[in-house]
């Protein structure tokens, strides 16, 4: 019998929520464990099997010099490497530090700064090594995660839609919260994957799945401003859990500049 493919799960700066999604696959977990060798998954097991690994799932962003080194080692040991979640694909909520004026971070920022090692920025995995696939979401959708694992184990591309949350609203029959309730929503520029969760709860999307492919952020911003959303709130909205993703970062920064000028 062919040997089972080896799966590894790695963690960087994160909340553990994305890897927990794997343990939250209560109905599928034991089947997955049957098909693959769980070679490295510290949250679940003490047993550690040496690399190389067929598939590495990486959660979290890079925020320390040590982690920047560690991710390169992991890349070398992994046939495929998939970044999972907003932290790993965009730098995550901790990337909010990237927007602070670095001049403010004068030498003695901590009670005991000499104890702490940290990089100035929180960056996604792809800023350090090549990544075979990025699965977005804060947290990832567990069914999409299972799809990604299955796809890589069978050597095919994962089937993950890149359209907007709006499409999911239509499919689910959720009435548009912007049109019907006047609630500002990031759905038009955010990638699907949550099944239009927030709109279904009468709440505007807050972008936790990150930008969709080619989002028209400028037109959405114009719409929000027309609706009377203050510019600072607009900046904060784009600067959330995926705020350092390029499209969202540029959008929030463009309004900040406008703010300073005006």
């Amino acid at each position, binding site marked *: 019998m062919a040997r089972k493919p080896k799966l590894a799960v790695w963690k960087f700066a994160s909340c553990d929520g994305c890897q927990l999604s794997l343990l939250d696959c209560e109905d599928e977990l034991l089947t997955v464990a049957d098909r693959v060798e769980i070679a490295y998954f510290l949250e679940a097991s003490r047993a550690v099997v040496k690399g190389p690994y067929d598939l590495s799932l990486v959660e979290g962003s890079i925020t320390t010099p040590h982690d920047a080194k560690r991710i390169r080692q992991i890349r070398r040991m992994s046939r495929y490497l998939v970044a999972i979640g907003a932290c790993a694909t965009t730098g995550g909520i901790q990337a909010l530090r990237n927007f602070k004026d670095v001049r403010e971070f004068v030498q003695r920022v901590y009670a005991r700064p000499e104890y702490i090692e940290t990089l100035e920025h929180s960056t996604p995995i792809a800023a350090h090594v090549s990544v075979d696939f990025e699965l977005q979401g804060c947290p990832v959708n567990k069914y999409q995660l299972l799809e990604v694992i299955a796809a890589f184990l069978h050597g095919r591309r994962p089937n993950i839609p890149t359209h907007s949350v709006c499409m999911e609203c239509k499919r689910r029959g959720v009435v548009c919260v912007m049109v019907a309730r006047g609630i500002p929503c990031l759905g038009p520029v955010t990638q699907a994957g949550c099944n239009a969760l927030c709109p279904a*709860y009468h709440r505007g999307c807050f972008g936790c799945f990150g930008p969709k492919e080619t989002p028209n952020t400028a037109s959405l911003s114009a719409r929000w401003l027309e609706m009377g959303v203050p510019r600072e709130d607009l900046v904060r909205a784009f600067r959330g859990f995926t705020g350092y993703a390029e499209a969202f970062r540029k959008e929030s920064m463009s309004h900040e500049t406008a703010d300073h000028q005006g």
Partner: protein
Amino acid sequence: MKRRTIKVDYLARVEGEGALYIRMKDGQVTDVKLKIYEPPRFFEAFMRGRKYTEAPDITARICGICPVAYQMSASQAMEAILGIRVEGPLRDLRHLLYLGEWIESHMLHVYMLHAPDFLGYQSAIEMARDHPEVVQRGLQLKKYGNEIVAVVGGREVHPINVRVGGFYRVPTREELQSLVDKLKWGRDAALETVRWVASFDFPDFEMDYEFVALRHPEEYAILEGRILSNKGLDIAVHEYDDHFEEIHVPYSNALHSRIRGRGSYLVGPMARFNLNFDRLSPLAQEAAREVGLLPPCRNPFQSIIVRSIETLHAFDVALRLVENYDMPDSPVVEAEPRAGTGYGATEAPRGLLYHRYTIDDQGIILDAKIVPPTSQNQKAIEEDLWHFVPQNLDLPEDELVWRCEQAIRNYDPCISCATHFLKLHIERE
């Protein structure tokens, strides 16, 4: 002279990344360090300048295992500033949501992270080969906890439905009714779990802890209460900072908490059980009596039984809340922001979770402080090891290492939580 060191570079089956270092000389322990090297994420620093309405969602990201706890403590602190109270069915829904998180978190720990230690397996997946029905039962229990969170909160990890003042949308009676049969099954299975874990072998080990937990006049405190201890502490939540302090130690990215003038203390299931036994549901009390576990319980290894008893309590109370639910007219108590400082403390699965915020009259956060349970327990964990290791020096090396890991896992430490904060003090010339 014989020197010996125990090193575990990556602690497994804990949430987050930590390491353990113990040094011994001539059979005496000379150093114990629980090192938390999970990188700091600076939540308290970047919360400044955000809106008060964002605190529940942002702080949820400190921990994917107990996001509801963060949402609850944050919401309550903000509500205290706004001068509103969330009561009646809205409060019941919060209670229900939180119980769902307790179930999910406790069952993850009991079945997947902790039980394998007692039965000699590396993981629950390995354990499932010999005990498939048991592991299936654990997964099912955990799944039902997750379903409660999903029905009320929208999804399991980082629910989207919680806001300051209540919810975005409240479930209908029918939506909640869909849980009834599952909760009944869960209640029975939780009782089985109590019996199962009570049959494990427990090391003979006790410590004289100071237990700290919330206490509520009627409920087994989870959403609110006064902060009590078995050694005389009895304070309101807003007095927390007068009685507790945090120390920055060189080897850990998490601050250590202690009671001013006294030292270490313990929060979490054992503390709640010992201080609030009389508030557990009658069914849970009966189960505790049946397996012979009554307060005071001072053996940290038995925390696995306490978690199981709390899970039984959670299913029992959840069922009552679901059966008595009447859909409220409005999902939220609305209020305008005003300047002030507010405090919130709730019982996360791992223990007391304290939040403090100061906001301005526009609702912008000026200052934030968050003290999660794991940083409060760090000193107690180290003290356990100072005493546990000398009593077990005759064990073979691998077994001693494993036992030490288990002693840490007794606390279900959530290292992601413990390192979220490390405050940035920005000094300007």
